[in-house]
């Protein structure tokens, strides 16, 4: 019997480590034999900690939300007697979350032990590399990637073969292959999951890429906030060295390749290629002008190719299964699968990997199970702070680079933040802009000051101080920032504002002209009042943190508007539905 505890960062945060310790303790105490392993995240973060039990016959039972206290029951029943604890196992409904996905990038995540290279090898790992080195010359490798139609999963969706080819064609003293693991989008964590759950897939992908481009040096630029990922990649690199997959003379060929990890200090802008290179070189993480592109002059002025974690993780699969198999998935020029991080007002949040082209509806309502508390779906923010929102009426948009871009959003790194009727879209735009303007490196004026000014306008609108002309000013600044900012961060920063203005302009107008927040979320524009349904239970007055509610027991209470901070506690507390907000 094999027991696997999901120990990605999400699992550990939910208490998986404690679960594992308890499990081992109980097994020992109870004298039971089982092979306890760990794995990365399977993607169903909302169900963590997850414990998978493989019976000797190979049959899998998945237990979810297993706290340390729950362990004894499972051990006593399942491990000791071979009787699965049905009520603790994953529900059929939740089972669909993974079941309906198409997992390529996440093929091993949550399944294998990321700290054991043999588990990776057992699932076909490094076979692709071996066969590539044996059978393909670099041109053929690039051709295969071209056939697969793989595009950069970091956000821009640029054809991978093209970048590889450019880097291959540029000669230099050295040549670098870089893995961008500086996953900076709030709400996106697919790269972390891959690095924590299946680091070898990235390493194998990089070696294949290095071979194709004629590079001997790989660098993984990982944010320092991912200590577990860094630890596991390092372990994986060491193990790959031991097996001769890294180092000198791979598979008996003349080819050498090595990888080092660089920890970045976690600046969003360092996800931008040139800023990342500056950071790698020990400079302040600020973008440099392109051209020259990194493919010509990148890290230490040498030809450099940068792909992100998800892109690299796709590579071994492509060579295991053939480019055509990859290209068979997807829609139009958007091939293969894409991992999305589902978050926000969604029932089942987590990582989902689906073939490109799947309609958003199927992801949110199919895999994600719909909106929390069955509220009304309003919009989904795609592509993080650089992306845009897609409104309910466009929910059938297929997730391809082309279709999503048409809406004004972007596929980006795959963040999907679901919003319901309680989300104020102006406030939402404000939130994302606040993020990007804080992360601006400060180099170009449009980004440094322009985003700040846009934010100030949004802030005053949400404060109820919006003025006639503000929308136009936002539009003007947005257009000019897109045109004038130096790098992708600035050029995309206005997107959340532009898309909300496109689809929810009325909300902006309501804020400005009617001084009303339709979602009842902007505190300055709402007012709590107690109606005659009040029975004088006094609960609201007790809960009010600022003593703004007064009234005698059994009499109708009143809110002192001057004192009220609009926290909404009273409304939550009232059992009689006597408190309205408007």
């Amino acid at each position: 019997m094999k027991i696997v505890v999901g120990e990605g960062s999400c699992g550990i945060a939910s208490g998986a480590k404690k679960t594992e310790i308890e499990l081992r303790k109980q097994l020992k105490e109870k004298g039971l034999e089982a092979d306890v392993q760990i794995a990365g995240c399977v993607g169903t973060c909302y169900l963590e900690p997850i414990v998978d039990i493989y019976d000797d016959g190979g049959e899998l039972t998945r237990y979810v939300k297993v706290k340390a206290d729950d362990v004894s029951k499972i051990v006593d029943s399942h491990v000791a007697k071979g009787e699965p604890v049905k009520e603790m196992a994953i529900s059929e409904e939740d089972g669909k979350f993974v079941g309906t996905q198409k997992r390529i990038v996440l093929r091993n995540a949550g399944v294998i032990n990321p700290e054991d290279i043999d588990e990776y090898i057992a699932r076909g790992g490094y076979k692709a590399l071996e066969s590539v080195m044996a059978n393909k010359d670099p041109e053929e490798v690039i051709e295969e990637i071209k056939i697969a139609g793989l595009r950069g999963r970091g956000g821009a969706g640029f054809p991978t073969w093209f970048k590889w080819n450019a880097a291959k064609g540029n000669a230099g003293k050295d040549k670098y292959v870089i893995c961008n693991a500086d996953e900076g989008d709030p709400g996106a964590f697919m790269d972390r999951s891959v690095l924590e759950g299946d680091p070898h897939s990235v390493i194998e992908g990089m070696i294949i890429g290095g071979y194709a481009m004629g590079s001997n040096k790989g660098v993984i630029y990982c944010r320092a906030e991912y200590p577990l990922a860094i630890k596991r990649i390092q372990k994986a690199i060491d193990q790959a060295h031991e097996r001769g997959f890294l180092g000198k003379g791979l598979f008996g060929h003349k080819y050498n390749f090595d990888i080092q990890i660089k920890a970045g200090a976690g600046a969003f802008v360092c996800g931008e290629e040139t800023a990342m290179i500056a950071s790698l070189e020990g400079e302040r993480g600020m973008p440099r002008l392109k051209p020259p592109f990194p493919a010509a002059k990148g890290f230490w002025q040498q030809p450099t190719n940068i792909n992100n974690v998800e892109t690299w993780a796709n590579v071994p699969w492509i060579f295991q299964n053939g480019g055509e198999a990859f290209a068979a998935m997807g829609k139009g020029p958007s091939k293969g699968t894409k991992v999305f991080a589902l978050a926000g007002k969604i029932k089942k949040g987590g990582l989902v990997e689906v073939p490109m082209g799947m309609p958003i509806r199927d992801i949110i309502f199919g895999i994600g199970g719909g909106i929390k508390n069955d509220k009304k779906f309003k919009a989904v923010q795609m592509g993080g702070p650089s992306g845009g929102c897609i409104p309910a009426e466009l929910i059938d948009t297929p997730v391809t680079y082309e279709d999503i871009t048409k809406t004004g959003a972007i596929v980006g790194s795959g963040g999907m933040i679901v919003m319901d009727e309680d989300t104020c879209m102006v406030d939402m735009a404000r939130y994302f802009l606040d993020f990007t303007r804080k992360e601006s490196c400060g180099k170009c004026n449009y980004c440094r000051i322009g985003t700040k000014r846009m934010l100030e306008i949004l802030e005053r609108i949400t404060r109820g101080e919006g003025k006639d002309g503000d929308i136009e000013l936002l539009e003007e600044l947005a257009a000019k920032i897109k045109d004038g900012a130096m790098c992708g961060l600035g050029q995309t920063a206005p997107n959340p504002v532009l898309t909300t203005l496109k689809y929810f302009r009325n909300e902006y107008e309501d804020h400005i002209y009617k001084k009303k927040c339709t979602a009842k979320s902007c505190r300055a524009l709402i007012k709590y009042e107690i109606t005659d349904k009040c029975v004088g239970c006094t609960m609201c007055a007790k809960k009010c943190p600022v003593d703004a509610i007064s009234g005698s027991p059994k009499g109708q209470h009143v809110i002192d508007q001057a004192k009220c901070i609009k926290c909404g506690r009273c409304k939550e507390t009232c059992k009689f539905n006597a408190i309205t907000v408007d």
Partner: protein
Amino acid sequence: MKQYRLNIDGKEVRGFQGQSILEVARDNDIFIPTLCYDESMEIYGGCGICVCEVDGNPKLVKACATEITQGMSVRTDSERVRESRKTNLELLLSDHTGDCRPPCVLGCPAQTDCQGYVGLVANGEYEEAVKLVKDKIPLPASLGRVCPHPCEKECRRGLIDEPVSIQWIKRFIADQDLMNDEDRFVPECAPDTYKKVAIVGSGPMGLSAAYFLRQMGNEVTILEAMPKAGGMLRYGIPEYRLPNDVLDDEISTIAHMGVEFVFDTQIGKDRAFDTLREEYDAVLLAIGAWQSTGTGCKNEDADGVIGGIDFLQNVVRNRVVKLGEKVAVVGGGNVAMDACRTAVRMGAKEVYNIYRRTKDEMPADMLEIEEAEEEGVVFKNLRNPLEVITDENGHARQVVLQVMELGEADASGRRKPVPVEGKTETVDIDNMILAIGQKVDASLFEGLDKTRKGAVAYDPETFMTSLDGVFAGGDCGNDKISIAVESIADAKKASACIDRYLRGKPFKYNIPYYVTRDDITEKTFEDRERQCRPEMGHLDAEHRKGNFSEVIPDGYSPEAAEQEANRCLECGCHEFFDCKLIEYGNMYGAHPDRLAGDKSTVVYDDEHPFIIRDPNKCILCGLCVRACDEEMGIGAIGLVNRGFDTVIKPNMEKPLIESGCISCGRCVSVCPTGALQERQTVLKEVPLDTNVTETTCSYCSVGCSLKLESKGSMMIKSNADKDGPVNLGRTCGRGKFGFDCSVLEGKLEDPLVKEPEGFRETDYHEALIMAAKGMESIIARYGKDAAAISISDRYTNEEAFAFLHLAECMGIKTFCFNNRQSGMLPVLGIDGSPNAIEEMISSDLVLVIGYNTVDAPVARLKMRIAAKQGKKVVLINPREYEQHFDTAETMYVDNDISFLRQMAKAMIDSGITSDIEGFGEFKDSLKDVKVSDRAAEIAELYAGAKHAMILFEQNFVSVDAASLIADIALMSGHIGSPRNGIIQMKPKNNSQGLIDMGITAGAEAMKGIKGLMCFGEDPDTELLKDLEFLMVSDTHMTAAAEMADVVIPGTGFLSTDGTYTNTERRLMPVRKAINEGIEMANWEIAAEIADIYEADYGMEDIDDLADALAKRIQAYRKGELFQIFGGISTPVSPKFVAVDKDSKFVEPMKCTDNLMNMIQERLPNPASMTD
């Protein structure tokens, strides 16, 4: 290199492959603005101001970073480009804290540069101050007397004690100018445009417009209805405030410029308006507002009721004014006060002032009100005339006044007077003067659109009326009756419009934008010392009320004016005239108010002796950071934080002085705004449009080209010249901040002679005779060999030659204490660098053997460039002289010549041999040397390099070490050809020049000297102690001067024309920037002494000296500026010289130039930095 054709803004141009759009545009004089680009640094691309459109590219591209391609079509000034730049600039300006211009300037309707002229007065620069005032105010002596000075209302000094008395300072400088009868300031006029302008009216508007239009080269005629010019200044303002002779003097300057005046000619009556338009290319109506308006009270037209202006005019014109004993003057403005006080002076016994509100609301100057009261005027405030009661002849006898009270504030913010029902007062009067206001009578100008009130209507942006070519302004237009300075402001703007109209250009006037601060309060200045204005003498009331003598007879004394000017708080940004941000902001019509929001505020504290930082003016262009890091290799400052909070700070957030800063000031020079400024040494720092002099630095022998900024005799700042052939825009702290050492505190101004009790000031005559006689007696007693002249190597070639020539006239020898014998000379036969500094960059190896960065810092920058371009640079120094030498290899050895000997031995061991004389002895002298690996390695590197250069410092390394270096070069063959040779860094700017003219001896020449004339040197006093006579000429009281019998003031390089010969033997120009205020130029001292000697000196000026010098020295004969004499030098009868094995490697010599020592002392030591 490939050449491309491309099109920029419709112009076909060519450029080379690899050039950016910006570079090609600049090469073709096409303007593209940028705030972060500097050709000497790597492309940054942060500011985004240089955006352009390129056909086929949907995005805007950055011109600085976009390489040209064949057939490219670029638009640098399209609507989209302009819009992007505009908003970009607005964003920058919206986050910019400061006052582009001070509140006083912005408060002045004419935007007179108050801070500028006040500051100039504080520095004693009266002439420059007058010029500056007269740029905006043609009648400063008049305005200095009568202007209600709105500037002072804005003056922030008022938040401390009382505003700076800007008006009185203006009067002071204007009076100073008028006192210079012969030499008054008259502005220059541009070449004739042959366009004729008629100006109708000679009041402040007409006179000023004439003044400005004439300066622009136009022919101007003023047509005046009255018999004299001046308008209201003459006929509306009584003489006790503005004496006629002052006004006449100022008008005469305008006449002197060539403006024609035609008097007693009223247009529409004496001359037709139509013909005027036909005869002139443009007409300006400046007729003012000459009709008094009434109050609307009953019987206002009674006999004895007069208009205020009519009354004042009649008094001025000496027309019969029948005034009774009791006079009531209605109105609260200055005209009313003038009328009251004139009535007093005309003999009225009782004068009442009747005004609807209280004194506090009176528009008249408080001073006028006070003086009127002193003169006995009775103020009947809160009264309004209801009815004039007449006698049987219809003459006014009484006036009934309605009693008023103050009600609610009205639109103007003043409380509105309302009648107290039924309350009146009746006053006996003989006359009533109505000084309520005036209106325009433009009825004679037919066909002209008028305003509702009958004034002349014109477009406020162009000043043009409804008739083409007819302009108007001042009081006669658009219903605004105002003060003189507003008319003058109109005159300046209207003149510009008219001039452009005459030239057929668009002539709309745009109001410029300025960043202002609104966060200054009394609290800001809490810690300032209170200092009130100096008093101004007034005639007391008894002495003045019976006559029209000027009430304030003598304005400020110079002392009082300077003291008062020093109270200025210097609100306006000192970098205004150099600020690219505001220049571009206005160029693109930025209105940042629409983007107003938070401003980043950085609290900072810096006490750098030369650099002022103001991060709140920083636009984060990164130029300073890059200059410090990329160019200088220091990296003392860097970017901190992210987003809007990004800020540039010194290393580790320390004060700048502790950050590793070497005080080179390069950051200040590249800063496009006022975020980094020079801390100036003038008494009062003033933002000024300066004069620029291109000259050469007078410190080390590199020869950095400098642009010196000055105004009058003030030295303001120095910047390295980008076109300087040696320094290419770089300089060290001495060039940047040491330019004005010769005029700093303690400067010698008068000759001194030593008496038993100490020095006594004297005149040149006595001092020079004593010097000549002193030397004569030494020669008489000891012979000519006992007398000598020492000449500093800081002087220009011409100055040094003047002293040399004097010595020749006297038959005595010359030398320079600062001259160390060249160790290279016996080996190579030349005492001068055979090669140029620039050659280091293209050589393969540069060996720097004995170099102390502080002696010639810019040479290090050249070595850096060489290293950055992949050339090998190795520094070999004694251990005590570790240097910050990034990008180069460093090696530190004992302070003896063993390492050099090892290198030489290693080369011989490797088989190098020579048939040049002395090689055998040389080889023998090295036979016992044991070669270390390191020495062998360097020797191999050097001997094996294709091209190799050596640089050493002559006054740093010992003579023997220098000989050995020459031996090594000679042996290796790296000598005498391009990129193969030696740079012998001379100690001073003109050390080489002295050698070239034959002043080759050093301190050793002092042996046996009893009498010395020492020009500009401050040697070790030990060397002077046996002298029986010593004359010293220097800028300051040096230790040598203290020992002298006669001291003659000298000057530095600021006040002379001439040349230096730098260490490469390159002839560098020196140009006069200012007058240092010293009576006698350096060369003249020599000429005068020669004259006393009755020698035939034969030099009348610097040019004579230059000619004589050129005749003397072959190389200088054909020498052109910036040229290297003779190109690369080849050895002259070379010979190997074996040196004493116990010699030291370096033996630094103290510089004898007191100015060099002074700046070196002033420059802070950089906080220790290691490589």
